[in-house]
């Protein structure tokens, strides 16, 4: 009996998550010992806040990467949704909840377009989403008139990310809503991935798309659905970043997709598709922001920060490859 319990606790998937989690803990312990400024409430909140947007984008990427696709447009799609929210709330004067709907709908719609281009037009995901990335970057600038859209006349908008529901009930834990949104989204995404048909087909598409097609499943429909879901998640990211800055910054976003993909990969999801976990992605996102924040606290010169982060990404993926070979 203990054999099966041991096997279940320490199977490959659990070990993968434990390794990533252990690395995160090791980093935090290291930085706490290296500087007394690291482990303060304000700094912990800052790390959580800095991870929120990247974490949400990484969750969107996780779905797409598990299908052995990739989505390079997540960064500019986030900005596009933020701009759409801005237009709806400020220029059209609609209330906040309409703005929230605008973000989700624009995200889902553009995700749907990416999916259609990939599935129906058979353009490889790398190219399709690269094109979408540029298209959305331009659209964001066009719609906003290349100027930031400020939400100062939309009261309550900044509370979406900057308010603290948790802090309302427990004043000593001032965790901003952006983080709460990240965790709730992670729970929901994990549920979708592991307990729904969509989730099952996500893995199947990544493992063996042909076999799935031959067994009579409407592969195109599910692919488009996954990209649409990823797009909607980017809409949530757009809401969070717009609320955090209390403005929609149309020039921002390009380059954020690489941080998101890095988080997914550090978390153990393979770019080849077929396997991955939301928890791994979240841990990966935190490893990146803890590393960046810790190096800043230690006054490591900015040039060196990215050198170290890049090195850690390569080491993390290599460690994962080695572990997979042994398993």
């Amino acid at each position, binding site marked *: 009996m203990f054999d099966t319990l041991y096997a279940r606790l320490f199977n490959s998937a659990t070990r993968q998550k434990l390794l990533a989690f252990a690395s995160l803990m090791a980093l935090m312990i290291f930085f706490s010992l290296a500087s007394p400024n690291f482990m303060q409430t304000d*700094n912990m909140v800052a790390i959580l806040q*800095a991870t929120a947007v990247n974490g949400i984008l990484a969750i969107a990427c996780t779905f797409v990467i598990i299908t052995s696709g990739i989505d390079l447009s997540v960064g500019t799609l986030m900005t596009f949704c933020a701009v759409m929210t801005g237009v709806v709330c400020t220029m059209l004067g609609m209330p906040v909840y309409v703005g929230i709907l605008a973000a989700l709908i624009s995200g889902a719609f553009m995700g749907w377009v990416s999916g259609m281009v990939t599935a129906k037009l058979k353009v490889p995901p790398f190219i399709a989403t690269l094109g979408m990335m540029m298209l959305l970057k331009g659209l964001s600038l066009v719609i906003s008139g290349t100027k930031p859209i400020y939400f100062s006349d939309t009261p309550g908008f900044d509370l979406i990310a900057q308010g603290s529901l948790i802090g309302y009930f427990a004043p000593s834990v001032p965790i901003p809503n952006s983080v709460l949104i990240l965790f709730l989204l992670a729970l929901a995404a994990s549920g979708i991935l592991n307990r729904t048909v969509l989730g099952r087909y996500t893995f199947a598409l990544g493992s063996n798309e042909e076999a799935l097609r031959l067994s009579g499943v409407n592969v195109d429909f599910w692919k488009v659905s996954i990209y649409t879901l990823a797009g909607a998640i980017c809409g949530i990211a757009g809401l969070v970043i717009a609320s955090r800055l209390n403005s929609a910054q149309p*020039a921002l976003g390009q380059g954020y997709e690489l941080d998101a993909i890095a988080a997914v990969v550090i978390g153990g999801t393979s770019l080849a598709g077929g396997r991955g976990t939301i928890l791994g992605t979240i841990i990966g996102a935190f490893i990146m922001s803890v590393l960046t924040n810790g190096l800043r606290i*230690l006054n490591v010169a*900015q040039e060196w920060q990215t050198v170290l982060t890049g090195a850690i990404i390569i080491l993390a993926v290599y460690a994962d490859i080695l572990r997979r070979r042994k398993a």
Partner: protein
Amino acid sequence: MKISHSIRSLAVATAAMALIGASNAQEVYIPLVSKGFQHQFWQAVKSGADQAAKDLKVKVTFEGPETEAMVDKQIDMLNAALAKKPQALGFAALDSKAATPLLKRAQAAKIPVVAFDSGVDSDIPVTTATTDNIAAAGLAADKMAALIGNEGEVAVVVHDQTSRTGIDRRDGFVNRIKAKYPKIKVVSVQYGGGDHLKSTEITKSILLANPKLKGMFGANEGSAIGVLNGAKEMKRKIVIIGYDSGKQQKAAVASGEMAGAITQNPVGIGYKTVEAAVKALKGEKLPKIIDTGFYYYDKNNMNDPKIAAVLYD
């Protein structure tokens, strides 16, 4: 196992750096959070700040996001800077409104904030060390007018219309032309984000649309290089006045391809920011704006020691 060895040595290296960083806990520490980092202009500001740190015996760090659109990354940097419990703070806001909550935190913690370059649209900073961009762009307008015989058509390529520098340089140039040179018409003002390529394409469009155009003003280094490239590709001879320096622009001014340019004093901006912070900590009263100065340079005066000192590569 090889991996744990590499990770371990990486950890040791970082720990060594940390010890070096953490050893000076007693010194006055002033972090500067800037609008950018890798452009030579910002590196010149950093060198001024480093020099002031050495002269005034304080500890200074300098950081900024990779692009001027990364407003949230700058906020993360500001957060981290405040977490290190500095004595004073230097800041050049990408978006003043986004930074206000953090500046309020600094104010509450009695950390004086010295704004530099674009500054911050708020009354929290105790002073702003910056170029008087309106006057500087006005000088560019005067030089342009003189070079085209006080009449004709001109155009402007600016980096943006949201930052203080973008707005001030555009208005400084355009308003001066309007006020003093009624026979000169500004036919077009376009925004290229400071990106060389984009500004080049914009310049070419402006030249195609205005065959009688006599001169163009590029309001920052990237825009000016774009104007230069655009005019070259269209084989049009126009009077070009730029802004800031950088290797390419300096070479263009030296060869005469560019009639001249306005230079700020980036080293002075960095130096005066740190100097003002130290003064604020001593309780000295500071003026609202510290004018760090500007010059017009062309191939005749760019080798004067005073001018050469503020030109960077």
